[in-house]
């Protein structure tokens, strides 16, 4: 009786052994700065990457402008996932990032959204007849989603007409809050914020056709501290995999594989 118990325990411990050894002897820890619009997909990507590689990933979410300031003053991030293309390009120019590592990891999409069901029609006509109190957009000077929103309004010739009723969030998260709390009837938010399993989760939305604004391309770049870190090279390869592309698309983004492809336009 006792002997078999011991053997069972021993057996279990031995079974666990390969598990310990499958974790690479140097489990690295990566620290990534990520634009806040990409929070949900990045958490999922990091979770999966940690599981398969055994490395640890620490994520910092915030605005790209803040990260830029921090990185140019020595913040210890290994890589930067920006909400635009300009800031990673600028970091490369400043010699703070690796030019060869820069790639577009996602293309953001705009949605006209209301937290009220049935408020936004399938063609966004509600913007034209103007039966709403406020239209929330992200600050066009700071946020690529805000710039795209203004471009869309120009395209629809509604820029002047909506000006008096526009309120600006400092970033896309705040813009979302203004609409989610009902303070603004309408808002131009990131599609990724309102999509859950490929469906608009709450309220009503018009997914703005991509021809109506310039693509919101989001670039990632390896920073000085991340150069020649094997774990980061693994992550970069994983970011380019079909699995990650599919995951990013499920959150309402375009990905490099669809850019310029049939579905992109």
């Amino acid at each position, binding site marked *: 009786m006792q002997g078999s118990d011991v053997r069972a325990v021993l057996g279990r411990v031995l079974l666990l052994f390969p598990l310990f050894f499958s974790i690479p002897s140097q489990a690295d820890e990566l620290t990534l700065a990520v634009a806040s619009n990409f929070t949900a997909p990045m958490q999922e990507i990091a979770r999966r990457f940690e599981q398969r590689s055994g490395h640890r990933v620490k994520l910092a979410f915030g*605005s790209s*402008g*803040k990260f*830029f*300031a921090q990185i140019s003053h020595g913040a210890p991030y290994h890589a930067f996932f920006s909400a635009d293309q300009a800031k990673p390009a*600028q970091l490369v120019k400043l010699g703070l990032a690796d030019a060869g590592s820069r790639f577009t990891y996602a293309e953001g999409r705009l949605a006209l959204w209301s937290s009220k069901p049935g408020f936004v029609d399938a063609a966004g006509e509600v913007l034209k007849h103007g039966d709403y*109190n*406020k239209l*929330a957009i992200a*600050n066009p*000077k*700071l946020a690529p989603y805000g710039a795209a929103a203004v471009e869309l309004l120009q395209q629809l010739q509604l820029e002047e007409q909506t000006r008096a009723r526009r*309120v*600006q*969030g*400092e970033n896309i998260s*705040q813009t979302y*809050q*203004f609409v989610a*709390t*009902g*303070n*603004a009837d309408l808002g131009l938010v990131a599609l990724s914020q309102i999509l859950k399993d490929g469906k608009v989760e709450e309220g009503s939305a018009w997914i703005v056709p991509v021809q109506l604004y310039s693509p919101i391309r989001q670039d990632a770049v390896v920073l000085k501290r991340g150069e020649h870190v094997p774990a980061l090279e693994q992550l970069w390869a994983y970011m380019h995999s079909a699995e990650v592309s599919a995951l990013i698309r499920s959150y309402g983004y375009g990905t490099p594989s669809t850019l310029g492809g049939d579905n992109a336009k």
Partner: protein
Amino acid sequence: MLSDADWAAIWLTLRLATTVTVLLLLLGTPLALWLAKTRSAMKGPVSALVAMPLVLPPTVLGFYLLIFMGPSGPMGKFTELLGLGTLPFTFWGLVVASLLYSLPFVVQPIQNAIEAQGARPSEVAATLHSGPWDRFWHVTLPLAKPGILTATVLGFAHTVGEFGVVLMIGGNIPGETRVVSVQIYDHVEALEYTQAHWLSAVMIGFSFLVLLLLYLLQQRKSAVGMRYGN
């Protein structure tokens, strides 16, 4: 150096801070008096509530105000009933938020000043047939003057420096809700570091002067206080 937008933000900030300080002195002084004098069991809970903005992150306060003053929040429903619409994204929305945010900075110095007097001056006045109002105006308030002065300066300065709350409920509308702190944030985020430095320099200079003034006044007051003590 400073753009028109910067000046508009400075002007708006001064207007907001002045409005809030005046309102806070009107509302905060009776509250401080009550807190200093009461023996009610409510003293603890009310003191804690007054001090809450000191420990709550401004973004938390701002987020709940956004809900509270929004169309489905109790205050939003009330203001809409009055035909005022909802308060977020308006100057008066910022005023309400700042009142809450700066409340402890006004109430606490006044309360401390009244408590430090003790009950004696008021009691002595009462034996001379002075009524409650008379005692409040001619004994308690004048003796609490240094505290009221501190409250005024701190309430004003703290409202000038407010950021998180405005960011959450302001909507960044030029001339209406875009205050200096938000304007500086915008400059930094847009990588316009030179403009950010200039506007920040103005803020740093201003806050130093305000606090210097406060300490100079307090020094003078404490000299006067000693005279009272003799």
